């Protein structure tokens, strides 16, 4: 599994997930399930490490379940998708066999993006707390 391909597939999943959320009436669960099903069916047939890439796409599909208050714009979803792809790539040996591990990576990526943004005043020069 290569990091570059993981990121590319993660970004594609993030883009499709965001678009489906914005342009259709599908529920968050339907969008995530559809993306997961597509990834699990297609990627193992295309790549030798397809199962690993499917994990990346599945984790990113959980990112796209974020509310529009958290991730409103497509670039925000893509940035978090990038974080998430990298986390899944480097965290392959973490929480092995524990259900919910991909969701944990997704949540970590979303929080890594949204928490600093919500508290950006704290990082500005001259602002005292």
């Amino acid at each position: 599994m290569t990091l570059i391909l993981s990121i590319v597939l993660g970004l594609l999943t993030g883009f499709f997930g965001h678009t489906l959320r914005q342009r259709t009436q599908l529920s968050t669960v339907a969008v995530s399930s559809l993306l997961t099903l597509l990834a699990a069916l297609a990627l193992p047939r295309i790549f030798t490490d397809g199962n690993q890439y499917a994990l990346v796409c599945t984790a990113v599909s959980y990112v796209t379940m974020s509310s529009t208050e958290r991730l409103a714009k497509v670039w925000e979803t893509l940035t978090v998708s990038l974080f998430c792809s990298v986390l899944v790539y480097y965290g392959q040996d973490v929480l092995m066999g524990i259900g919910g591990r991909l969701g944990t990576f997704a949540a970590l990526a979303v929080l890594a993006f949204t928490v600093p943004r919500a508290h950006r005043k704290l990082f500005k020069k001259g602002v005292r707390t």
Partner: protein
Amino acid sequence: MCRHALILLPLVVATLELAGYLIGRTSSVVLLALLAFIIVLAPKGCRLGDWKKALRSALICLVGALASFLLANNLDLGPLMASAVVGLLGTVVLKEKDQLVVYLGTFIGMSSALRFPTLSLVVLAGLTGGILWEMLSETWNGVGGRLGTVAATAVLIVLLAFGGGLQ
């Protein structure tokens, strides 16, 4: 505070693993102590508003977990496809809030059969997941991956308490 402590449990374990600490017997004892501390705090910090609602969520989550686990392991669909199929079926037959609970259950059912050698552990984790869902309903709202984190919390609680640790 208690809610955050609960939902952060998978992140604590992941950090320990990333930092290179093998989750062996000693670490399991430390994590079990942390879990006991959370459970002592839980009745004060994590108010469970309505037991009937919690029981309903627990049962829906259990159905999702069992369906996904059995599809993944007995029909050899694999965890990803099993979770997606059960999630999609849920969107057809359930209301939106219940869809989320059944999807949470499918995440629990994605656990490896090596972690859950018997179905009773899946049942316990499924029920725990539904109850946690109600307890943590106001935590991390709108954060994608929250369901997975709650699922991982439920799985870790069951493994630490009944499943012989994380080794």
